[in-house]
C-alpha cells in the first residue's frame, strides 16, 4: 500500500491555507470558501489513510464530510443572502450591531 505521509503533508498545507483564509480575509464569501478548503483537507487525509490501511471507514467518513459541507454551505449562503438584503454588504467588519 502507498505511504500516506505525502498526502498527510498535502492535507496539512491545505488545512493551513483554509485556516489562514478564515482568519485573514474580510469577505464572508471568501471565508466560506476557506472553510470548504479546510473540510476538503480533512477529506484528503481520510481517503489517504483509509486507502493505506485498506479500511473503508476513511472513505465513508469523506462522504459524510461532503454531505455535511453541502448542508452547511446551503445554510451559510442563505444567512448571507438575508444579510445582504438588509445591509447590502458582506464585509464582516461592517457587521457590528452586537458588541460588548
Amino acid at each position, binding site marked *: 500500500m502507498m505511504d*500516506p505521509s505525502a498526502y*498527510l503533508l498535502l*492535507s496539512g498545507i491545505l*488545512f493551513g491555507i*483554509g*485556516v489562514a483564509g*478564515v482568519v485573514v480575509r474580510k469577505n*464572508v464569501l471568501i*471565508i*466560506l470558501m476557506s*472553510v470548504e478548503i*479546510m*473540510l476538503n*483537507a*480533512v477529506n484528503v*487525509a*481520510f481517503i489517504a*489513510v*483509509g486507502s493505506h*490501511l485498506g*479500511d473503508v*471507514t*476513511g472513505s*465513508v*467518513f469523506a462522504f*459524510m*464530510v461532503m454531505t*455535511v459541507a453541502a*448542508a*452547511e454551505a446551503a*445554510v*451559510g449562503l*442563505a*444567512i*448571507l443572502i*438575508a*444579510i445582504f438584503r*438588509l*445591509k447590502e454588504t458582506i464585509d*464582516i467588519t461592517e*457587521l*457590528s*450591531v*452586537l458588541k*460588548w
Partner: protein
Amino acid sequence: MAPISIDAAALLTSVQSIVPEIIVVATAIFVLLLDLAISEEKKHLLCGMGLLGIGVALFSVYALGQGRIEGFSGMIVHDGMGAFFDVVILSACALTFLMATGYSEWEGTHKGEFYSLILLSTSGMMFMAKGTDLMTVFLGLETLSIPIYVLVGFHRNRMSSLEGALKYFLLGAFASGFLLYGIALIYAVTGTTKIPVLATMLYDPRILASPLFLAGTGLLLVGFAFKVSLVPFHMWTPDAYEGAPTVVTAFMSAAVKAAAFAALIRVLLVALPGMQPVLWKVLWGLAVLTMTVGNLSALVQNNVKRLLAYSSIAHAGYILVGLVSGDVLGGQASLFYLLVYAFMNMGAFGVVMLIAQKEDEGYDIANLAGIGFKYPALGALLTLFLISLGGIPPTAGFVGKFYLFSAAVKNGYIWLAVIGVLNSAASIYYYLRMVVYMYMVTPDVEVAVPRPPRILFSMALCASAVVVVVLGIIPRSVLEIAERSVLSLLM
C-alpha cells in the same frame, strides 16, 4: 458479488437503540407537513403536536430503561449515560415548546419550520450523546448545529438576529473543521474512529507519545471547546445568544451544552483515560480561564441576555471542573449539574422573556426596575432561578456546585476548587444585581408591564422552579441515577 445479507435480529436491536430519536424525527417531519394543511389561526396545534411527540419520546426512553443496547455495529449505544442525556435534552426541548406557545404569538414564530427545526436539532443532540464512534458524534454535532444556525437567524428582519447567526455559523463551521481534522489525525495514527477501540489502542505507549496523535487530540478538544463555549473559544457565544430569538437562546444554552458535554464526557472518560496525566493540565487551564473570564465579563453587562450568556460561559467552566477530576465522582457531578443547569437557566430566560416586551430594547437591566413588588410571582421566580445560578442554598444550583467542587478536592485539585468557589462568589454580585433592580430600584418611567403568560408558559416556569427546589432539598435519587449512568459508561 454476493448480496449483503441482513441480520434481522441485529437490525431490530439497532432500531431499538434509537427509538426515541426515530420518534423525534418523525414528529419533526409530521409537524412540517401539518403546517401546510392547517389554517393560520390553528397554528398552535403545531406546538401541541410537537409536545405530544416529545412526551412519547420521553416515555420510550423510560421504557428502554438504563440497559445497554448497542446498535449499528457499535456506532451508537443506548446506555445509562445515553438515557440520562436523552431525558435532559428532551426536557429542555419540552420546556422550549411550552415557552414557545406564548413567544410565537408575540413574535410571529408560529411556523411549522420553527418547531420542526427545534425537533431536528434535538434529534442531533440525542445522537451525539449516544454516539460511540467519532463519526456518529460528528454527524450528531452537525445535525444539531445546522438547524440552530437557522433558528438563531429566524427573525429575518432584525439585523442583530442575522448577525448573531452569521457569527455563530462562521465560527461553528470553522470549529467543525478543527474537530474533523482532529478525528482524521487520530484515525491516521490508530486506524479506528470507534471510541471503545481507541481506548484499547491507547495502552500502546508509542501511540500515546506520537505527535500526530497529540495534535489530533488537541484539535478534537478545540472543536468541542467551541461548542461548549470554553474560553478562549467563546467569542461567538454572547453575540449568538443576544441576537437569537429568546426561546432559541434558552434552548441553546441548556440543550446544546448538555449534548456537547455528553460527547466530551464519553470521549474523555472512555477513550482517553490513558492521556489523563497530560490532559488534566490542559483542562485545568481551560476550566480556570473559562470560569474567570466568563464571570468577569458578566460583571459589566447591562443587557440581561448578554449577562446570562456570559454566565453560561462561566457555568461551562464549572462543569469542566468535574471533568478535570476524571473519575466517577466528577463525572456524576457534571451530569447532575448539566440537568440542574438546564432547568434553572431556562427558567431564568423564561421570566426575562415575559418581562421584556420586545426583542433588542426590552432586555436592558433597567427594565427590571420595580418588577419585584408589582408582579410578586415573576419577581419571586426570577429570584429563585438567579440564586440557584449563583449557587446559594437551598437550591439545586448549590448542591450541584457542592458536588463539583468536592469531586475536585477529593482528587487533589484543591486550587481548582478554591478558584471555583471564588468565582462563584464573584458571580453572586451580578445575579443579585438583577434582584436589586427588581426590588430596590425605583423605575424612572412607569414599571414595565410583563406580557400575560399563557397557561403552558406558566407551567414551564413552575415545573422548572419545582425541579430547582426539590433537587436542592432531596438530590439523592437523581445523584444515584447520575452515578449509575457514569458507571454504565465505564463498564
